[in-house]
């Protein structure tokens, strides 16, 4: 190896060694920057993950809150639906009872309808329908006839046995006097309800509920509506039917007389 060449070699070596250090330095620097970048990226990714996790938790919490509100709304709506179905049922009962009471001018059918309302809609097992007798000239108090009695065939002597009601049940007597609907039983009366029957504010009778069916332990709130309806409509339906029957009978008699007079 000559000097020149050695020098050359040395020079080449030295001249290549300097850029190598630079390159190494640059490489280190680049590596550091890359590491820095990597740390930044990693930190950024971790931050994003944390943020995402935070957002997801918030969304879950929000969704849970909404679900809870929706569930509460559903419960509220279900409760309202049940209430409106009950209300619809009550109104239907009232409509059907009113319709049927006034659907006929046959007194027997009106009585049958009152009995059907008492049995099928109120769940009464024993009841009596008292109607004031027609005024008799010279008689001050014509009294009440027992127009209908149900479920008391084997009963021993009681105020409702026989054809007439002559008093004896204090709650019923009071209702017949003042026209106030009363619910029992009381210490004085076994009756569950004494429903006054009115025609234009005049008391013409009473429906007395004495016992309910075994599976219907008590009168419910909606039954009160039906009792009020019976109080207002049963007597007027009965009154109209009896009036019609009387007038119809008179009309037939007159027609017969006219035919007789004409010699037909």
């Amino acid at each position, binding site marked *: 190896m000559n000097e020149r060449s050695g020098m050359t070699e040395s020079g080449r070596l030295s001249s290549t060694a300097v850029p190598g250090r630079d390159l190494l330095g640059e490489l280190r620097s680049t590596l550091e920057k890359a590491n820095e970048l990597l740390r930044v990226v990693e930190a950024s990714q971790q931050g994003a993950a944390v943020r995402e996790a935070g957002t997801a938790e918030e969304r879950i919490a929000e969704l849970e809150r909404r679900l809870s509100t929706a569930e509460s709304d559903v419960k509220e709506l279900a409760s309202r639906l049940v209430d409106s*179905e*009950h209300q*619809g*049922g009550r109104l*239907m*009962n009232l*409509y*059907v*009872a009113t*319709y*049927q009471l006034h*659907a006929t001018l046959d007194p027997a*059918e009106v009585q*049958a*309808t009152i009995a*059907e*309302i008492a*049995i*099928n*809609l*109120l*769940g009464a*097992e024993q009841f009596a329908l008292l109607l004031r007798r027609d005024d008799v000239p010279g008689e001050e108090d014509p009294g009440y006839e027992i127009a209908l009695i149900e479920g008391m065939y084997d009963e021993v002597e009681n105020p409702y046995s026989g054809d007439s009601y002559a008093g004896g049940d204090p709650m019923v007597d009071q209702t017949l006097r003042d026209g106030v609907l009363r619910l029992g039983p009381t210490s004085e009366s076994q009756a569950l309800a004494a429903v006054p029957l009115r025609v234009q504010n005049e008391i013409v009778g009473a429906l007395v509920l004495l016992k309910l*069916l*075994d*599976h*219907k332990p008590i009168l419910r709130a909606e039954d009160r509506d039906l009792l009020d309806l019976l109080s207002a409509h049963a007597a007027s339906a009965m009154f109209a039917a009896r009036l019609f029957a009387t007038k119809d009978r008179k009309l037939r008699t007159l027609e017969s007389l006219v035919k007789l007079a004409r010699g037909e």
Partner: protein
Amino acid sequence: MQPRKVLVVDDSKLMHKMYEVMLRQYPLVYASDGRQALDRLQEHPDIDLVLLDINMPNMNGLEFLAELRSDAAHANLQVIIISTEGREEDTARGIEAGATAYIKKPFHSEEILEVISRLEKKGAA
């Protein structure tokens, strides 16, 4: 599956009106006792649900049910008893006689609609 036609067997006109209002989405046919009900079934072969009272004149609900179940043609007819007879043994007797369900009077309309809806779902399944 919705009933094609419903036979109401009850001697109460009030109850006929009640069912008319309550079940207005179904075609209804009426009978006032068991005998009339058997005639209606002959006249309307598309009846596939019967709402049956127990206490009726001429032929009561249980007698009607016995006649019905003795006829293979009506073996699959659904019968819901709706009666004031509410003791446990009354219910058991009705179910044993072949009723699909037993409802006690007085009832809430939802009870009947729910039973019919359940039968519809059962029929569709």
